[in-house]
């Protein structure tokens, strides 16, 4: 068979294949976008209902575009009775303090476990490893009892403190520092730098991406946590957002749909902003840790 003939046939074959590939590319694109729209329906409903009168929320057929568009649900949930401003502020306080505390303690400990050599290090680290299998849920009962006994029950500290010192954060930071070269420290030690300086001037500046990953994870866990405040918090002035949201269902189980959805939108917005702004860090954080809060 002549050489040119073969290559011609192959060229024709590959152009056909390319055409077929473009076709599947577009058809699967359309399919995926259709699926994505179905996926988003709950959020569309959330926003749409928050802009309706309560009476229109369960109209048959569904009214997707509110008519008239009413903003008063937002005014109500922000200024009215059961305002979510206080819970919002509480959620911010808890999340921010947790992030700062977690980043500080986990970074220092993770660095020491990875880069410093001291007696008992491996034993302590082994105990950390063993503890990491214990679910937070199991610790909820004893933490409740202890906080109740020492007077921390129903305070924001009961949410902040256990979230500031985590085995998981320490692990993630240790994994990061283990992968950094030891030569930097050796060189700095020869120059007479203190251990603190080596940590804060040499290694810490390298940890930016890892710190933002851990910070994002901690913030999201804290912001979305429902179970811990449900157990630890009882009075309305200490409510965090998820707790305040769940409180929109009254004792009879009835829901004021538009108010609940307006409050839900407000609770979702900060996370969405963080997600959209820091998308790459966010996704790196989730995939590298593979952990749900």
């Amino acid at each position, binding site marked *: 068979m002549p050489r040119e003939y073969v290559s011609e046939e192959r060229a024709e074959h590959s152009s056909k294949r390319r055409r077929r590939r473009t076709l599947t590319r577009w058809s699967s694109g359309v399919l995926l976008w259709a699926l994505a729209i179905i996926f988003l329906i709950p959020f569309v409903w959330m926003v749409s209902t928050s802009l309706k009168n309560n009476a229109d929320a369960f109209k048959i057929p569904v009214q997707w575009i509110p008519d008239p568009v009413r903003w008063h649900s937002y005014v109500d949930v922000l200024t009215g009775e059961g305002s979510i401003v206080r819970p919002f502020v509480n959620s911010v306080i808890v999340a921010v303090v947790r992030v700062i505390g977690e980043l500080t303690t986990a970074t220092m400990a993770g660095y020491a476990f990875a880069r410093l050599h001291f007696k008992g290090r491996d034993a302590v680290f082994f105990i950390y490893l063993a503890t990491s299998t214990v679910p937070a849920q199991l*610790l909820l009962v004893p933490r409740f009892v202890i906080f109740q006994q020492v007077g921390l029950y129903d305070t924001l500290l009961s949410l902040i403190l256990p979230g500031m010192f985590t085995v998981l954060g320490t692990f993630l930071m240790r994994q990061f520092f283990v992968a950094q070269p*030891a030569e930097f420290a050796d060189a700095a030690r020869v120059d007479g730098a203190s251990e603190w300086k080596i940590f804060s001037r040499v290694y810490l500046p390298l940890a930016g991406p890892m710190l933002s990953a851990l910070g994002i994870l901690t913030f999201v866990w804290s912001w979305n946590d429902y179970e811990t405040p449900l157990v630890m918090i009882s009075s309305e002035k200490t409510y965090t957002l998820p707790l305040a949201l769940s409180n929109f269902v009254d004792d009879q189980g009835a829901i004021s749909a538009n108010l609940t959805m307006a409050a839900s939108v407000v609770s979702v917005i900060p996370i969405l902003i963080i997600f959209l702004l820091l998308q790459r860090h966010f996704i790196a954080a989730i995939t590298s840790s593979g952990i749900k809060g």
Partner: protein
Amino acid sequence: MSSALLTTVRSATAGPKSHGRNTSHPGLNIQRSGWWFIAPNLAGIVLFTFIPLLAVIFLSFTDWNLVSGVRGIKLVGIRNFTEVFQDPQFGASVVRTVLYAGVSVPLAIVFGLALAIALNRDIPGRGALRSIFFIPYIVNQVAIGMTWLMLMNPSAGVVNQILHSLGMQNAPAWFASSHWALPALILVAIWSEVGYVSLIYLSALQDAPADLYEAAEIDGANTWHRFLTVTWPALVPTTVFLVITELIGKSQTFGLVALLTNGGPGDSSTVVSFYMYQTAFKFYRFGYAAATGMVVFVGVLLLLSIAWATQRRSGRNAS
């Protein structure tokens, strides 16, 4: 938190070992500063993890209702544990949890994998699509729960309106029906988890060797054959990781149950963590709740170690 161990195991081989030159002559100040560095973290972990852990172990051998104060704690030996194993409500809640996890985890993983493979192609708006599917995972459960509660309202919810318009006469009452409460919870769980699963698979797919694909393509392997011989082997570790972490996560499902069904109707959706919660915070049986928690924790740990061991053995036999 339980998957920290896995994370470490997964990446244990990633970095070079830290034993550098300085191992041979650790200076005194390194010795001391090591402890200073871990002190804040260690103190917190001792106070809020170690001590509670010892406390829950201790509590599981006691009978205590909180109201009677610390002096009212009565040691009862292993009575709580014998009761746990004879408690039909506990047994039923374990069965429901197994059902819930056993259905939702495989489905989320299969759909997530399919989605990841689709998104791994050069599709218009790929980045945006990836984000859209991921959003349910990062939104708080209360907002999600409230929304689905309304969407799945038996009479006027959007879901049943659609089913009615498709000609279904008696659409399920979802969270209000003792038959449909658990399946409805599973649906919501899958919806919120699929994007996460696909994201994890996507990052694994992008690590998969591209030249292997080209080789298979030149061999003329069809898509399915290519998936089985090239893609799937590269995804097995990710799948094992996902199955284990998802099963751990699902065995602790609490928020959606508490919000959407409160364990009901009746106790038709009382999963084991919700049963434990009720035992402690509704009936104030703290000792018994601690024992239930211990049994579940040890049970999950045992199951996982068995799964881990069999998986390793079968892996060794295959190679």
